C-alpha cells in the first residue's frame, strides 16, 4: 500500500514539475528558458550515467572506462526502433490519444535499448570480469571505440552524417523518472545483501569468495545493470536531441562520467548525483570566460582532487543512514519480532 502510494506520489510530483518547468522555461517569461531547460535535461541524463557507472566503478570496484559505448548502443538502438518501427507501433495502439501513442513508442524504444545494452554488457563483461586486474578497463575502452566506429559505418543509422529525424518523445518527465528509477535501483541494491556482496568484492576479492560469493557472477551483474541504465539514458538523450552523432560518444564522454563520480565521491550515490550536476552546470557557468573556460574548469577539477581526494561527499551515504533509521523504526513499531538489538540500530542515524 505504502509502496503504491510512494510510486503514485513520485509520478504526480514529476508530472507537476513537468508542467511547471514547461510553462516556466519553454512557454514562459524567462528569456533563456529553453537553454535552462536543456541544461536540466542534460543534467538528468548525466545523473543517470554517473549513478549507473558508480555501481560498477565505485561500489563493486571494477574499473570500466567505456560507459559512453553503452550510452551509444542504447541511443542508436532506441532511435532505430522509434524511427523505423514507430509508425507501426502507433498503428497498433491507434486507439490511444496521441500522447499515449508517444508513450508507447518511447517505452518500447526504452525496452529495446535496455535489452540491447544489457546483452552488450553481458558480452563484454563475462570474458573480461573473469580475470582479476585491469582487463575490464582495457576491454571497455576498446569496446567504446569499436562501437563508435561501427556505428559510423552503418548507413541505416546515418553513418558519418549522423542520425536525424528521431521523434522528440523524451522530456523532463521521462528523464527524471529514469533518474528516480536509477537512484532507487542502485540505492536499494546497495542496502541489500547484493550491495554488501559488491562492496565485499571491492574490499577483498579473496575473502569475498571464501565467504561463498560467486565473484565473477556478481561483477557481471553489477556491470550489466549499470550498462542497462546507460542504454536507457541513451534512449532518452536521442529522443530529446532528435539527432545523434558518434561525436557525442567518444571516450572523452566516458572519462567525463568517471570524473563525475570521482568528484562526487566514488561509491556514493549522492556524490554521483552532485558530480553529474556540477559537471553539467560548471562548463555552462564558465561560458562567460570564453576561451579560458576549459582552463578554469580543469583548475576546478584539480583543486577538488587536491583538497578532497575522496570526492566532495566521500563515502558518506545519506541513503544508508536513512535506511538504518527506517529499519530501527520498523522494529520499534513491532512489525517484526525483534529479540536481538534493533538490527542495524538507531545509532546508525
Amino acid at each position, binding site marked *: 500500500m505504502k509502496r503504491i502510494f510512494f510510486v503514485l506520489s513520485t509520478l504526480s510530483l514529476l508530472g507537476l514539475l513537468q508542467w511547471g518547468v514547461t510553462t516556466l522555461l519553454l512557454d514562459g517569461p524567462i528569456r533563456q528558458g529553453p537553454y535552462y531547460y536543456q541544461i536540466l535535461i542534460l543534467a538528468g541524463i548525466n545523473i543517470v550515467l554517473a549513478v549507473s557507472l558508480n555501481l560498477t566503478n565505485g561500489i563493486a570496484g571494477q574499473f570500466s572506462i567505456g560507459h559512453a559505448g553503452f550510452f551509444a548502443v542504447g541511443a542508436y538502438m532506441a532511435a532505430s526502433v522509434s524511427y523505423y518501427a514507430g509508425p507501426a507501433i502507433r498503428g497498433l495502439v491507434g486507439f490511444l490519444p496521441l500522447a499515449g501513442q508517444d508513450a508507447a513508442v518511447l517505452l518500447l524504444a526504452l525496452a529495446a535499448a535496455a535489452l540491447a545494452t544489457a546483452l552488450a554488457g553481458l558480452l563484454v563483461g563475462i570474458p573480461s570480469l573473469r580475470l582479476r586486474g585491469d582487463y575490464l578497463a582495457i576491454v571497455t575502452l576498446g569496446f567504446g571505440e569499436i562501437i563508435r566506429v561501427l556505428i559510423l559505418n552503418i548507413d541505416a543509422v546515418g553513418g558519418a552524417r549522423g542520425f536525424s529525424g528521431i521523434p522528440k518523445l523524451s522530456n523532463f518527465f521521462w528523464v527524471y523518472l529514469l533518474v528516480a528509477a536509477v537512484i532507487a535501483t542502485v540505492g536499494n541494491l546497495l542496502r541489500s545483501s547484493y550491495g554488501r556482496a559488491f*562492496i565485499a568484492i571491492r*574490499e577483498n576479492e*579473496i575473502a*569475498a569468495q*571464501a*565467504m561463498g*560469493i560467486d565473484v565473477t557472477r556478481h561483477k557481471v551483474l553489477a556491470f550489466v*545493470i549499470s550498462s542497462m541504465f546507460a542504454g536507457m539514458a541513451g534512449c532518452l538523450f536521442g529522443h530529446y536531441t532528435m539527432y545523434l552523432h558518434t561525436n557525442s560518444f567518444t571516450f572523452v564522454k566516458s572519462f567525463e562520467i568517471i570524473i563525475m563520480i570521482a568528484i562526487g565521491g566514488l561509491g556514493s550515490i549522492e556524490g554521483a548525483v552532485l558530480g553529474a550536476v556540477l559537471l553539467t552546470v560548471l562548463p555552462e557557468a564558465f561560458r562567460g570566460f570564453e576561451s579560458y573556460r576549459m582552463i578554469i574548469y580543469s583548475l576546478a577539477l584539480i583543486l577538488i582532487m587536491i583538497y578532497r581526494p575522496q570526492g566532495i561527499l566521500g563515502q558518506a551515504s545519506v541513503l544508508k543512514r536513512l535506511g538504518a533509521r527506517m529499519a530501527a523504526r520498523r522494529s520499534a513499531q513491532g512489525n517484526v519480532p525483534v*529479540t*536481538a538489538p534493533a538490527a542495524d540500530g538507531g545509532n546508525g542515524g
Partner: protein
Amino acid sequence: MALLRLQNATIRFGGLLAVKDLCFAIEEGELFGLIGPNGAGKTTVFNMITGVYSPTSGAILFDGKPIHGKAPHVIAASGIARTFQNIRLFTSMSVLENVLVSAHMRSSQGVLASVFRGPAFHREETAHREEAMRLLALFQLDKLADEAASSLPYGSQRRLEIARALATKPRLLLLDEPAAGMNPQEAADLMRLIRRIRDEFKVSILLVEHNMKVVMGVCERIQVVVHGEGIAMGAPAEIRKDAKVIEAYLGRE
C-alpha cells in the same frame, strides 16, 4: 567416514614442489593441527583445500565427495570456511556487515526482490541481522556491531574473522595462524574459544599455528609437514617425542 580427506595431494608451482603426496583425514568434530617450520607449505595446503589453488595431482574429498579443482565459492558453499593468516576483513564495512556478507549465499532474495523490497525481503534481512548479532554476541563483538571493522583492535579483528567464517555455517573451519601476534593471555583465551566453537557449532577445526603451546594444548591430532611432505602424524604427546619432528625443528645433534 572422515569429513575431509587428502589423498596424495600434490601441488607444483613450476619447478617448485610445494606439497608432495600429502595424506591425512579429519574426522567429524575433530580439532586437528597442521604444523611445520616456516615455508613448509601449510598455507598452501589451506589454499588447496579452499580452492584458491587446485592440486596438480591427488584428490581432496569433503564428506566423501571430491572438491579439488572447484571454485572457492563453491567449496565455501559446501561447508568449508576459513580465516586468513594476514587478516582480510572488509575494512570499510561495519562489524555487523562483515558477518552479514557470509549470509549472502544463503539469501533467497534475487536482484528484483532486493530492488523492490517486499515483505519477504525485510523478513529475511531481519532474520540474517538477528542471526549475525547472536553470533557477534558469542564473540563479545555485539557492542561494536556498528563500528568500522578497520577500527577494531588486532585481537578483535581476529575474532571477527572467525565470526565471519562461522556465519557461512561451515562443517569444517580452517584457522590460519589465529594466535599470530597474540600475547600469552590472549593465546590462552583463544584456546578456550576454539574449544567452545567446536562444542557449540559442532564443527571440525583444522588449525595451522606456530604457537606450540596453542597447538599442543588444543589439538587432538597433529600432522607435521616439512618441505611439503608429511613426516609425522599423531596425538600431541607422540608428536613431541617424534625424532623426525625434533630434527626438523631443532636440527640433528
